[in-house]
């Protein structure tokens, strides 16, 4: 068994706030994990830490056996699509892909051919000189996903990849991700769209107030509850109905 990702007692403090609290789990290579939680639960902070964008206050994170902090080998294995997409918006699409490809050490010909393939698959068509700043939100998501996959990573982290995406593109992206999993790529995504997570991810982690409330195969976690949403609400949510007094 090859361990793709291993978090050991990971904690992150922001001043007095404990954003992530003693989170530990590991993923085998080829797994597909859905990380779900309420707003501010610690999902994005966890993803920032596992992609090396943020350092944990304590604990360790390993990617294919390499400690993430300062490890070029670990970062070479990672494809990441952060929540804010981290795009250089004043570059055109092809210029941005060249930049990303070169940063991962790819030759320009390889970058261009992979870019054409990715753009065709994701139906990302725009005049080549159009700046990313002028792309629609959905197009930005597509180019961020293309950039995350450009260097053939072994593990991919996607923060809210389906937010703001039209149904057709969502379908294409789902197929793409499932295809990657079949090829042995490890995938971790966060999303508030629980139906998508339920349809895609055999493994689920539920995080609330920085702590893991549940981790494991969906069937095991779900037990007798009706679907992921019911499980999620049972573990972290409130079911009380609320109304506005003036409406």
């Amino acid at each position, binding site marked *: 068994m090859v361990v793709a990702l291993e978090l050991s007692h990971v904690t*992150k403090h*922001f*001043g007095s*706030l404990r*954003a992530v609290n003693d989170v530990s789990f590991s993923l085998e290579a080829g797994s597909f994990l859905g990380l779900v939680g309420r707003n*501010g639960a610690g999902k994005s*902070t966890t993803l*920032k830490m596992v*992609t*090396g*964008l*943020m*350092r944990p206050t304590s604990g360790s994170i390993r990617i294919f056996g390499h400690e993430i902090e*300062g490890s*070029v*080998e*670990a*970062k*070479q294995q*990672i494809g*990441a699509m*952060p929540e804010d997409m*981290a795009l*250089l*918006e*004043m*570059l*055109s699409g092809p*210029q941005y892909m*060249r*930049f990303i490809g*070169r*940063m*991962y*050490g790819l030759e320009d010909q390889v970058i261009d051919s992979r870019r054409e393939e990715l753009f065709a698959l994701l139906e990302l068509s725009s005049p080549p000189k159009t*700046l990313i*700043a002028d792309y629609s939100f959905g197009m930005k998501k597509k180019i961020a996903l293309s950039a995350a996959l450009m260097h053939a990573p072994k593990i991919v982290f996607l923060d809210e990849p389906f937010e703001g995406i039209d149904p057709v593109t969502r379908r294409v992206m789902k197929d793409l991700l499932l295809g990657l999993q079949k090829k042995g790529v490890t995938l971790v995504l966060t999303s508030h769209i629980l139906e998508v997570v339920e349809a895609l991810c055999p493994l689920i982690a539920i995080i609330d107030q920085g702590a893991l409330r549940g981790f494991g195969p969906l069937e095991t976690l779900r037990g007798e509850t009706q679907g992921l949403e019911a499980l999620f609400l049972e573990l972290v949510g409130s079911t009380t109905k609320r109304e506005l007094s003036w409406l």
Partner: protein
Amino acid sequence: MALKGLRVVRALIASQTQVWLNTAFRNVGVLGSTLAITLAFGLFALITMLFVATCSGIGYATSHAVYEGNGGGAGAAFTVASFLGAFASVVTGDAHAFDWARLRRFPAESGWLFVAEMGAGLLHPVMLTFAAAQVGLVVGLCEGVRSLAPLALLTLALSLVVQVSLRMVMGSIVERLVRQARRVIVLVLLAGTALSWRFMSTLEPKLTPDQIAERLANLGEQITAWLTVVWRSLPASLLLEAGSRHGWSRVEAFMLPVLGVLALVGLSIALALREDGEGASETDATPERLWSFRAPVLGVARLQWLTLWRSDFGRMTLVTPVFALWPFIAMARLASSFSFSSGLDRWATISIWVMGALSSTNVLMNQFGLDRTAAKGLFLLPISDVQIVRGKALGYALFQSLQLAPVLVLTRFVMHAPWSVALGGLCMASILFVVQLTFGQWASVAWPRPLPRKGLRAPPGSLASVMASLMINATALVPLMAVWVVLGSISPRSVLPVLLLLLGLVIAAQWRMSHEAARWLSERRERVVEALG
């Protein structure tokens, strides 16, 4: 490994250049960009030619001394040029080239990122101007004594490395300073001012004119001796002396100081990376009430004040004048000690005020930049565009007052500038501020770009905006300097009243033009919303 590292350097520098060009083309189109670039190059060429000619003269004049083993003069010239280049680029608010926080995710050795930062560090108009000045020194040295060519070129390389390194070190220091809590900044400013005042007051002797002259002469001798030691200890001087006296065998030993500077830069970058890695607190407290609809202009002013106060760019405008003050205090003190000319005090004072006013250019030329997406919220409020424009102007004016208050205290009570000079400087800075504010109201709508609330790494500004602000500042400075110099020599007492009159006029013009600025904003509101997200 090295090949991969070089690819990283190439990727970063290429993307920086592309971003710069794309921004220019996007803002003013191909024709506008071509014109702006031509103008920029023209201006750059003019300034550079002056620098190169002057430095060639210095190089030629010192070449024989260098040949005889005395590298102090030429070394000092190299060092001064590299220091000024770094200092000026930091003061103009452009300390960092790359967004280190985003680069952390790439599989690149930090050493190569460092090399890329060094390379990109020189691709800046101010840095290039001073680099060209150093090339002028090399030309002058070689013109004087041809055999100095290899040594002069090596010194040039060393000096350029020092220039880029100093820029990064100073930029990191400023950035770290402005990242501290505002309470700490205020306390440090107050404590520094109080201590300086106390210290300088004790130095002020109550002596007869003869005793003062004697002491000044002694002080002058001591400072000359001290400066000689300093000049000779500078890396460039050591290298020139070593090369000319002992030949190439001793040259490498004198590269150690440069390696020390580089180590310092590495440390500062490591600290910056560490800080980025810690991440920012996601729980910054939001004030309960930002708005006061009883007076919309005051509500917008209050919001603008808070936006500046809570942003690193805003805090930098507070720190920069004080940061810039100390070299000028030292210069003025030295000038008076050498008894060169008491007029230098006035020039030093005025330079500080001008520097203070110019340090706000970045935020004044982009008045919606720090609002970012909140600009949309501002436009949705049930208030007129005139109220937005005037409210912002008032907010900036209040902030500028806070920025200039410590400068007034320091110039009057630490530099002991007469009230007429200190207040004259305040008037000049205020006039420059109002001119920039007025022009900024147009520029901010024409070329909006988001500025980060945290950190000083903004996307590159529009070339047209940079050029236009340079021209506006230069145009405003010419009559102000004319008043200062010409009127100051004919009728010194009338300088302050004339400057006050000018200030009143520009404030009146600003108030009148705010209607036009509001109309301009109404017409191009979409552009601001589109650019700021």
